[in-house]
């Protein structure tokens, strides 16, 4: 070694002190340099050794902003006729100046420790019942959260005393006296102090109060104070993450007695759908998704590992819900608009589902606004083999379009129908991969995916199997094609099975040929109703139970649904288009009797009509009433 020889030489040189000292110094310098060199070489080598394995996107992960230690938040809240905004520490967290929307009371919930927005809602308290929704929401918010209120346009017309009292209990002085077109802002802590309130009275009925701007400061608390002290388990870690981010989910974030997020329903014996992937199609309705996933995870035979939630857009809150339940979620960057966007989202989701589960022969397709029946998987487990074996089947669906409270009776009964109901259904992979995916409507075609699937070019005469009593329940009120009125009229009174472990009756008879035999048997046994009576009247069907009745309606050719539509309307069932038919035959229940409707002469079952019976013909109403509005109004009357 170099150092060693140097040292020996230096000893020999001790007789010549000055030279020796110099030499020693040189040795020292050489030594130091050597050390530095070795060190650098070592460092370089290590760097190099891992280089191949470095992520190419090294600089993508920008470290997050360090959590600011600031103890005080500056909050600005603005209320006026045409614009509201809320800014927290200079960042706008709400801004709404769009015309003709966003009317009412806007509510923002902030985390009292971090200042993050946990929920944003607007309640149109100009309209009825919205104040009840607001009360419900405010009651769900955890104590200690910071609440910010501001009115846009009008927020008092249907703001009832209950709601006013809740606002008062939050510390608002003005709320009880809030009146027509007043402007109002309020910031306070739930169950705690008030940070500020401003109000501008409307001087006259025809004018609005002056805009108000409230500027105030909010003192933040420590993170520990803002969180519940649940035992440290994997589940509670998920819960904690969720509850510190979002608000408005009620007891799931309750400190004392949180509702479970794991359900462990009974497993199904001989579960034929345990390995079938479940695709949940979702948008940005996290509260719906929450309700939907709860019911799905509570269904017997559910396999959480097979569930994937597909979110249409980069929305955070639905993803938070998915993670709360420990499921896997996928976000889809939206392309296209409205219906076409939903349709593209469906396609992307189905393609991804079969990619993620390449072994799967089927996929269950669900939507975020469905409740799932406790025996949903049991129903599928008993019937799915038909989809595999019977080429004449298009799908199995959990939804009966005509299965209302007053028209569905038998949880063990299945039908074959020519329409595709959707709302919880099973898709065969080969159908998707070989037929649907390659020609799925492109984004510029603004088609509904379900309408497209119902078109004869796609359906090719194949049928779907449905239960008499639906295994899903459509609870969505706010949606693309949905509003409260429509929902009341067509969905609210839908029958939904709540009985576990229903043993399905005679599944074999659902095969193509067997079903014809079954129908002929039924028609043979059916009693022909009195065709001189009005079929809309209750008395049309005798007061019996468990009998089979048949009626004949006029149906000139396969696509003539004139009488059927009128009959559906007066029976208060789905009448917006034709659903639930099988070769000109409809099956439903009236007064607990099986009730068959045959279209004559288009239906092949017309031969069962006694020659004396004249098929009933019902005329459509005159058009001048405004054709589009008629069905919705008529159907709404039932509720």
């Amino acid at each position: 070694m170099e150092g060693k020889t140097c040292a020996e030489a230096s000893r020999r040189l001790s007789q010549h002190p000055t030279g020796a000292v110099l030499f020693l110094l040189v040795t020292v310098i050489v030594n130091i340099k050597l050390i530095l060199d070795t060190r650098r070489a070592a460092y370089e080598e290590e760097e190099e050794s891992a280089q191949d394995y470095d992520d190419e996107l090294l600089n993508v992960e920008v470290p997050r902003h360090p959590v600011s230690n600031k103890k005080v938040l500056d909050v600005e809240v603005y209320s006026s006729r045409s614009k509201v905004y809320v800014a927290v520490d200079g960042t706008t967290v709400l801004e709404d100046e769009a015309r003709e929307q966003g009317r009412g009371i806007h509510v923002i919930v902030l985390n009292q420790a971090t200042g993050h927005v946990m929920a944003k809602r607007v309640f149109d308290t100009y309209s009825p019942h919205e104040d009840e929704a607001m009360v419900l929401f405010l009651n769900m918010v955890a104590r200690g959260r910071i609440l910010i209120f501001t009115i846009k346009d009008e927020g008092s017309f249907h703001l009832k005393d209950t709601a006013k009292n809740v606002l008062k209990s939050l510390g608002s002085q003005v709320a009880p006296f809030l009146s027509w077109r007043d402007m109002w802002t309020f910031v306070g802590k739930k169950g705690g102090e008030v940070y500020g309130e401003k109000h501008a009275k409307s001087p006259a009925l025809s004018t609005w109060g002056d805009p108000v701007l409230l500027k105030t400061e909010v003192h933040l608390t420590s993170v520990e104070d803002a969180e519940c002290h649940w035992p440290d388990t994997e589940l509670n870690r998920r819960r904690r993450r969720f509850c510190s981010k979002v608000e408005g989910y009620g007891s799931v974030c309750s400190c004392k007695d949180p509702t479970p997020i794991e359900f462990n329903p009974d497993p199904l014996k001989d579960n034929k759908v345990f390995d079938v992937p479940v695709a949940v199609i979702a948008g940005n309705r996290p509260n719906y998704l929450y309700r939907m996933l709860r019911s799905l995870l509570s269904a017997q035979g559910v396999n959480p590992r097979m569930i994937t939630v597909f979110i249409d857009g980069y929305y955070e809150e639905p993803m938070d819900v998915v993670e709360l339940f420990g499921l896997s979620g996928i976000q889809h960057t939206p392309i296209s608009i409205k219906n076409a966007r939903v349709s593209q989202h469906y396609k992307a989701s189905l393609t991804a589902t079969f990619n993620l589960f390449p072994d799967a022969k089927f996929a269950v397709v669900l939507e975020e606004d469905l409740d799932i029946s406790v025996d949903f998987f049991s129903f599928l487990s008993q019937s799915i083999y038909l989809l595999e074996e019977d080429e004449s089947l298009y799908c199995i669906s959990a939804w009966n379009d005509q299965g209302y409270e007053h028209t569905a009776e038998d949880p063990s009964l299945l039908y074959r129908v020519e329409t595709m109901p959707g709302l919880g259904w099973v898709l065969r992979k080969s159908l998707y991969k070989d037929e649907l995916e390659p020609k799925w409507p492109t984004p510029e075609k603004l088609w509904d995916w379900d309408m497209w699937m119902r078109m004869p070019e796609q359906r090719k005469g194949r049928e779907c199997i449905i239960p008499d009593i639906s295994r899903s329940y459509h609870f969505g009120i706010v949606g693309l094609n949905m509003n409260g009125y429509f929902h009341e009229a067509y969905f609210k009174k839908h029958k939904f099975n709540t009985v576990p472990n229903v043993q399905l009756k005679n599944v074999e008879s659902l095969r193509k040929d067997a079903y014809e035999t079954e129908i002929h048997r039924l028609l043979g046994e059916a009693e022909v109703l009195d065709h001189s009576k009005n079929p809309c009247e209750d008395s049309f069907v005798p007061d019996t139970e468990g009998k089979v009745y048949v009626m004949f309606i006029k149906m000139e050719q396969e696509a003539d649904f004139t009488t059927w539509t009128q009959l559906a309307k007066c029976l208060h069932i789905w009448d917006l288009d034709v659903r639930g038919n099988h070769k000109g035959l409809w099956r439903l229940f009236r007064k607990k009797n099986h009730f068959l409707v045959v279209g004559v002469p288009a239906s092949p079952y017309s031969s069962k009509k006694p020659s004396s019976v004249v098929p009933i013909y019902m005329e459509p109403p005159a058009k001048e009433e405004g054709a589009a509005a008629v069905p919705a109004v008529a159907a709404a009357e039932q509720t």
Partner: protein
Amino acid sequence: MQKINKNAVLALLSLSSLLFLLFQLAYYRSYLAHKNGAAFSKVRGSQSGQDSTRWHVVRKFLSLISSHNIPVYLIDPLILGLVDKDIEQIRSSSDGPSPECKYFCVPRDFTTFALLDKTWKHEVGLFRTAEKMGFQWLKVLNKDPRLDGMDDLSGTEIPLHYIFKLASHAIHLVVFYERSGNYLWHGPLRLKQHMDRKFVPFRKLHFGRYPGAYEKPELLLVSIDDLKIQIPKNPSSFLEEMTHSRFLECRYREARAFFQLYPDDASVDAVEFRKRAKSLLHLAALTLNNLGVKFWLSSGTCLGWYRQCNVIPYSKDVDLGIFIRDYKADIIPAFQKAGLPLKHKFGKVEDSLELSFQGEDDVKLDIFFFYEEDDHIWNGGTQAKSGKKFKYLFPKFTLCWTEFVELKVHVPCETLQYVEANYGPDWKVPVKMWDWKSSPSNVQYNGVWPVDEWDDVIQIY
């Protein structure tokens, strides 16, 4: 006085020099040790101790994963290589104690295991148990390639690799995912910024430099060195597979950009052609795989994969390449048996061989045979009416796996060079009028077949 002082100073300096010397020595040692991985000393001094450490770590790991019901199998090339030599004996041997530690004690830095993602439920608690047992661990996540496609999807990242380190040995656990096309895929190992680059000598890992594609292996439960363990039933074929397992993902982002510029043809004809081309490709792959003939996507089919991740709807045929050394005489009868009659045969095995089979509904399957030279690879073409020969030159390439229309197939790893050789620098621009004799940028005139050979080298059915 002065002399004493001088001596004292000298002594002091000598001492400090000596100290430096010792320090330097110590530093150098530690550097050497570090270079080989602090815990992976190559020093053979305590061989027996080191050897049994490896065995112990493997045993501990196996007990860790079995306590969490995680089914793993051994894919370590070093050990499987040794096992393969004694495979008959291992298969037949019963559970009796083995006299010596023959496999798991051999010197190495890692032992590699595979885990099938779908056979595994949750990792909850696994790492806590691992830590309690003394393991240090590292998890490598990345995005899920199964979500790549024409749609812009993003999901939670999936685990691709785990490394468990204990004492002087580490276990590399590679996660395999099932993908469309009935094969297994493992991801590349890429470290994120915050990760410890010195956790293990990553360069020495056997898996992870590239993503890889494998057949689903049949497994065998055996007892090796007193450890019960699953191994691929046929270790040698697994090891063979491993040497050319590199996988390329389709370039979906570029394909999306392509379709932005040139919107896809969604006509009924295009949909129908793609469907037929897909089923023809599936049939061809099945036939050739059964014969054990290695093939790859060539010409227009390769361009379709590379440029748009799909069949080019106006391409009219499916093109495959095969190295002439892999040629088998049974190829023609096998295709005929599969329902694809021979349409024409040009050239001969020694020169410019090209086969064409008639698929259903007018879709043709072209198989070009490739001839390797020192610095390039070429295939031939023949004009039937004139007997003219053409030669298409390609730079040398190797084969990689990819997924195309739900099929695991080969493509040239150096795809860009391959496509550019064939279609020139403007390959990104769709060309509908294509003349195989003049359009390719790598075509060379190659003389004329002698007339007396025509009957043999130009066969049309």
